[in-house]
């Protein structure tokens, strides 16, 4: 939070005529809704110690499939959107079958499923963006609906975040997810249904990634086969940076959203200020590395280890 304030002050001093405006806040929120949702899709699996590298591809898959249902099969947009969400869930189920059912390491397993889904995307799209005028105009009307300049996707992100926050912080299952992420074997021996919860985590990430894909499709007015994977690194960066906030080492909803806003404010400010394009990547990289490094150092310094096992450091998680 201090970082966000510091960035805001820096750019307000640097570019007082153009940065400290309501439209800048609106722009930061509206333009980061997709990456925020994708980042949120990673929180639950990472809390459970599961890497889902397929979320970017799931984004593209749902967008392409929903667009194809409208353009190629004449279905109403609402039906296509619903079908897109189901496909996201199906993708999550596929991941769960591979990672939890068969027991393949999540990092490799979801990399493999991502490749399979990439093939399906090519099969459906023939590697071309899928669109027509009806789809573009309907979706862009949807994407630009706003209240006070804040567009619909931002409200969706907030709603998802509230539900996820409540689940992780105030339910037994949420606590159990963190316990699984800390030590899956210990959690299993203590009677937690680890397989069920890990499968549920992957279903959730598939569903939310699908939702992110539909939002991206609405914003661009087309189902593009290459649209999702480029967001993957930004989403992971936000989740890991978010884990250094609020919950001190744990993946969490509030920290993730704050990280998206911090990174978004920094990159927006740099672009508004006319900084060179490479500076945006440098800013994200330095902030992420410094935040994680300092968290790691603090963990070493303190007597009680607090960082989640295989996610940020190699120390166990404190509960």
């Amino acid at each position, binding site marked *: 939070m201090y970082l966000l304030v510091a960035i805001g002050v820096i750019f307000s001093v*640097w570019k007082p005529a153009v940065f400290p405006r309501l439209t800048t806040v609106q722009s930061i929120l509206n*333009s980061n809704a997709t990456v925020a949702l994708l980042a949120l899709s990673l929180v639950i699996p990472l809390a459970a110690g599961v890497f889902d590298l397929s979320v970017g591809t799931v984004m593209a898959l749902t967008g392409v499939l929903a667009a194809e249902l409208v353009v190629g099969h004449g279905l109403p947009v609402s039906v296509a959107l619903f079908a897109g969400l189901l496909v996201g869930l199906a993708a999550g189920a596929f991941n769960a079958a591979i990672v939890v059912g068969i027991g393949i390491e999540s990092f490799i397993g979801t990399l493999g499923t991502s490749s399979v889904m990439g093939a399906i995307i090519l099969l459906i799209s023939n590697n071309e963006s899928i669109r027509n005028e009806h789809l573009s105009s309907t979706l862009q009307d949807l994407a630009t609906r706003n209240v006070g300049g804040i567009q619909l996707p931002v409200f969706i992100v907030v709603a998802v975040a509230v539900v996820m926050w409540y689940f992780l912080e105030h339910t037994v299952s949420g606590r159990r997810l963190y316990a699984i992420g800390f030590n899956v074997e210990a959690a299993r021996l203590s009677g937690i249904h680890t397989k069920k919860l890990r499968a549920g985590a992957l279903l959730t990430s598939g569903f939310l990634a699908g939702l992110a894909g539909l939002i991206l499709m609405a914003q661009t007015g087309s189902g593009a086969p290459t649209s999702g994977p480029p967001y993957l690194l930004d989403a992971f960066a936000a989740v890991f940076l978010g884990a250094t906030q609020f919950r001190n080492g744990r993946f969490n909803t509030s920290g993730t959203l704050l990280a998206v806003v911090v990174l978004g404010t920094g990159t927006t400010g740099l672009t508004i200020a006319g900084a060179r394009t490479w500076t945006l990547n440098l800013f994200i990289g330095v902030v992420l590395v410094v935040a994680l490094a300092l968290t790691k150092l603090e963990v070493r310094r303190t007597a009680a280890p607090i960082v989640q096992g295989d996610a940020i450091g190699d120390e166990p998680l404190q509960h």
Partner: protein
Amino acid sequence: MRSIAIMLAAVIVLASLAACSSSSSTKATTSATTQSSDGLSAAGSAGLAKAKADLEGWQREPTSIELTTPIGKPIPTGKKISAVFAANGSANLLSDPLKAAGKALGWDVKVSETQFTPEAIQSNFAQAVRDKPDAFVYAGFPGATVSQSLSAFAAAKTPVVAETVAETTDASKNYLVLPSPDVYALDGQMLAASITVATGGKGKLMLVTVPAFEIYAPVVAAVNSNLKSYCPDCALAQYDMPAESIGKDSATRITNYIQGHPGINGLVDVFGAFSIGLPTALQGAGIDPKSLKTVALYPPTQVIGMVKQGAVFAAIPFPFDEYMFTAVDAIARLLVGESFSPDVTTAAAKAPAVVWTQANAPANTDTTAGLPIIKDYEAKFRALWGK
């Protein structure tokens, strides 16, 4: 303590980056002092009038394929053509007309699509060399990456046609490049005239290019030079978009830049696809998309649809169909024993020049097929081939 440390780190980074700012230099063109009633200088009024006249000419539908000499000898059938294209949205736009042209001559056309990594490109090119085709066609790959395979084709005297590459035609190696550099200069001129008309000669312009793609450099140079005469009252700022932002955050970057530079009313999109998602991003920043006039080079079909709707002022289409037929024509002439004729090099130097605006853009853009510029191009090529 940790938060303070992170904050300090961010402050140091931002302070460092501040020193690196303003790479996107704004280049005010020369401005005369005399003002006319429309607020333009005398030179500005003259430039605007010239831009309108030129744009009107480019809005007429081209009818010539620039090739007039029939192939005088029978074209052999059963020839094998190999092609390698990048596996992206334009692969089919290239391969479909190439296959159609080949089929018209009774040739077998094998197209490979490759990921855009050096290893994948080189592997596909190496396979094409091993296939020993009668001719080879490719598009858009860097010369340094494929030089070894091109040398092998040259050694085997296999004709090669390259599209949208930075290299130039070398008749001694049977190596034809489509289009020639002259076309990029004309593209830049058409973009400059279009944005001048779109902004009424009073543009505060943003030009967005992708430096990673070498072919855009001459276009950017031509836009800059032509704006000096078309729009002396305009100011132009260049924004270099990283290739990794394509299909990701390009609309956000453009929007943020416009936020930071109030008054920008014209966008010259050299890459052609940056309008996708831009209206939503602009609205999200409280900017009316209608306040920004956009002209685009070689746009995807979706952007041409935006031209028809009036959301994009003008677009210069890429002649996928005409160029692939020109490629096959050039190969046919070489296979019957002719060299690259003046006709072929003329065709390479003269793309069917057209600017599509709301008035003349194709009505139906709900298609994944190409949008030919010359309606009866295929019949005209077949006539030259005696087919």
